């Protein structure tokens, strides 16, 4: 009996409502007290192909997906063919026995249970074939022995706006799938009880960034649609009526970043989001934000490149590009959230840092962290502060007499003024400039201005928290990662611990300024080190080598467009520690 945990996958063609159905399954498990992680795989098309939605729920903490599936819902034969190997022995497949013919004798796997459910017929009987997925949800709840009422209540809430008839039809459809399974099948040893747990919110990294931005007082958001960050645009646009926020879908990414700079220059907290392709178009203006000392927050959700690459899949291939993008040596702060909570809290930090240090702050995410749902307890915002950095009041300006926008100060930070402050008139400039802002090619002034901008980054380094180290400090191996590998690494650590192996994990959150001291310290005292990255060339390894002159003992790299499975990390750790047993 596998109690209070399940790994479930729902597959079919694009356009068949896979995303909505999967999210409902995640939601009902979250509402029943479970820890939930989900992610989707889908091609870059609107109809056809193959989409699937994976949900993992556990009474204990879940950080990531895991390989073996307990239950597969297959809307078509292709789903069975593609995912049969992922099923654990004794797992179940729900499919429409009246539409898809599966013969256990001819199936590659004999150790799985087949649950033919007349999905389409039951949906039509309940009021329409569109509810086929709802029938499958009812069947999934029955076979996992879960609480039907949670599903019924959730359906009622989701379809509230569509009226009682739609609600009742959907509940009937779910009920029909549920009853069909209860009446015809024994179940396959998975039991999900309702669990007492604090109320949690279920959201993606994209949504957490959006919420964080609004909490931080974002007043201007611009974007051009691009997977995987378009959902931030949708989220922000939906908030425009509720909050004092202007959202602009601009004509291209060059316009996007220049608009954000225009907004930042007149005092609005401004953010934009894109992916590598859009960011490539933005590079010149990234330098403009650096030299004009205009605060902006840039979200770069990575996906596999180069060029169009694999638009809907995941990769961490843009780190070195982001660190070095744009001509010249313009300062920028670069941070990489690893999960939903990081996305929320770091976004708020990003806005504060952008204004305090008057430079672009780049939040690097990727498809895996941007689109996967995780449920977490409500964000704690008691300690959240808004720090706008140095501004001059009209009284300050009166006392000063003359104002220089780029005044050379000890710490490199020149106080800002905003229109229409009478004595704060200035010129912000993409040319190298003097203290007022007038273009200057003077050798001494150039050197001073370059030094001034660089100094701000040194100052920021003092404020930025060191990278967190998870797990025991004397672990047998230290895993080092950045961004979305966090979930798989932490999941792997839990499993290794159960197997008597100890690993710890250094999460490099800030990539620039780079926390050389802490990384050196951890690496020097580690027994073994392994850098885990979703790219081909080991971009974090290269950065560590550049900044600390240290080389990790092992590199674990993956660049097939998929996120790491914890099992892949475990296997490499076992190899590194020369542990023979294979999981």
């Amino acid at each position, binding site marked *: 009996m596998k109690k209070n945990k399940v790994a479930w996958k729902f597959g079919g063609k694009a356009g068949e409502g896979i995303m909505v159905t999967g999210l409902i399954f995640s939601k009902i498990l*979250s509402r029943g007290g479970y820890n939930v992680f989900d992610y989707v795989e889908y091609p870059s098309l609107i109809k056809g192909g193959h989409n699937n939605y994976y949900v993992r729920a556990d009474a204990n903490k879940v950080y990531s997906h895991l390989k073996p599936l307990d239950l597969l819902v297959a809307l078509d034969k292709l789903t069975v063919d593609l995912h049969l190997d992922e099923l654990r022995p004794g797992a179940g497949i729900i499919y429409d026995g009246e539409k898809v013919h599966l013969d256990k004798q001819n199936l590659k796997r004999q150790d799985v249970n087949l649950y033919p459910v007349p999905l389409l017929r039951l949906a039509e009987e309940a009021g329409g074939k569109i509810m086929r997925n709802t029938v499958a949800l009812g069947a999934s709840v029955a076979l996992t022995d879960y609480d039907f009422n949670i599903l019924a209540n959730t359906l009622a809430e989701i379809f509230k706006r569509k009226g009682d008839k739609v609600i009742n039809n959907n509940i009937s459809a779910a009920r029909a799938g549920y009853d069909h399974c209860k009446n015809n099948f024994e179940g396959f040893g998975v039991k999900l009880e309702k669990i007492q747990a604090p*109320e*949690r*919110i*279920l*959201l993606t990294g994209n*949504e957490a960034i959006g*919420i964080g931005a*609004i*909490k931080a*007082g974002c*007043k*201007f958001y*611009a974007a051009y649609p691009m997977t995987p960050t378009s959902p931030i645009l949708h989220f922000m646009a939906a908030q*425009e*009526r*509720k*909050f*004092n*926020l*202007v959202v*602009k879908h*601009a*004509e*291209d990414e*060059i*316009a996007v970043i*220049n*608009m*954000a*700079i*225009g*907004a930042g*220059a*007149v*005092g*609005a*907290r*401004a953010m934009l989001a894109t992916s590598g392709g859009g960011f490539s178009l933005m590079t010149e*203006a990234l330098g*403009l934000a650096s030299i*004009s000392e205009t605060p902006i927050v840039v979200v770069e959700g990575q996906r596999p490149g180069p060029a169009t690459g694999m638009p809907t899949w995941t990769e961490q291939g843009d780190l070195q590009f982001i660190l070095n993008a744009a001509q010249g040596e313009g300062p920028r702060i670069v941070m990489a959230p690893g999960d939903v909570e990081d996305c929320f809290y770091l976004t708020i930090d990003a806005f504060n840092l952008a204004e305090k240090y008057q430079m672009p702050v780049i939040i690097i995410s990727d498809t895996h962290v941007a689109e996967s749902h995780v449920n977490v307890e*409500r*964000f704690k*915002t008691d300690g959240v502060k*808004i720090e*706008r950095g140095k501004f001059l009041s009209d009284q300050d300006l009166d006392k000063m007499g003359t104002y220089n926008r780029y005044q050379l100060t000890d710490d490199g930070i020149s106080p800002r003024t*905003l*229109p*229409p*402050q*009478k004595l704060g*008139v200035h*010129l*912000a*400039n*993409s040319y190298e400039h003097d203290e007022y*802002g*007038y*273009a200057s090619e003077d050798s001494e002034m150039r050197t001073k201005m370059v030094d001034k901008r660089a100094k701000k980054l040194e100052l920021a380094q003092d404020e930025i928290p060191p990278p967190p180290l998870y797990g025991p400090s004397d672990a047998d191996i230290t895993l080092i990662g950045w961004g979305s590998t966090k979930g798989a690494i932490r999941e792997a650590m839990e499993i290794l611990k159960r197997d008597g192996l100890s690993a710890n994990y250094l999460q490099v959150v800030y990539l620039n300024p780079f926390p050389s001291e802490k990384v050196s310290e951890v690496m020097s005292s580690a027994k073994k080190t392994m850098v885990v990255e979703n790219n081909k060339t080991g971009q974090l390894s290269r950065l560590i080598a550049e900044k600390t002159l240290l080389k990790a003992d092992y590199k674990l790299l993956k660049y097939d467009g998929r996120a790491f499975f914890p099992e892949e990390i475990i296997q490499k750790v076992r190899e590194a520690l020369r542990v023979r047993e294979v999981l």
Partner: protein
Amino acid sequence: MVERKDFATPVFPTWCPGCGNFGIWGALKNALVELDWKPEEVLIVYGIGCSGNGADFLKTYGFHGLHGRTLPVATGAKLSNHELKVVAVAGDGDGYGIGAGHFLHAMRRNLDITYVVMNNEIYGLTTGQASPTSEKKHKTKSTPEGVIENPINPIALAIAAGATFVARGFSGDVKTLTDITVRGIRHKGFSLIDVMSPCVTYNKINTYDWFKQRVYVVDREGHDPKDLHAAFAKAMEWPNLDGKRDRVPTGVIFETDAYPTYEELDPSLRRFGAPVKRQLGVLQNPDELLKEFY
């Protein structure tokens, strides 16, 4: 009352002696004085090129951005504080070449921004290559055997793209140009003021004399800028596809107050006013945001 000297800076203009941009600079200052706009009330966004170098010569809040990107910066600023008076200044390479995409989209948006394009029909700051407005057959450093393409017709483009005020000026006629600039700035909505600005160093064809022989002011011939079809006809007089170059219409070619501005229609600006004026640091109720995620 503001005076011309309120807009003066310590930087001595670096344009070539006789450059057409001086006339535009003068007319812009005249217009600001006539409108009684104080330096702190105005944001002028500049691009890169000889036109953009004017950033150092005019004292207002200024943003000297990238080549071709004046309008997006102006748009972001205007959307964040629509009470600010925003003027964008570009050149023909800047505005109609590398920045052509932004030009079209800014016009269909109809924000209350005035766009002054210093059009010398040549790339001046990069020492004399053909620009999008260079005439056919014009021999330049990048087209030694003459330009093959048709020149862009910014006036016709603007009317088609939804600009609600479209004018052409000539920097050799500062008085008319001042009038046009005042009207353009006063107009509520996107105003294009394309100004023919002779480049005395690199454009030996479209000189002051060349323009003086051809320029006329449309008002004086009874042109009605509210008449869309008449405006198109004026727009197509020059530059045109048949290569006739006998008359160059200047003045207000098209003007309409029939359409609301973007600011008037934006759901957030309408409801809450200028974003920058709302206090930051007061965190909004999280429950409202988190409701949909349970």
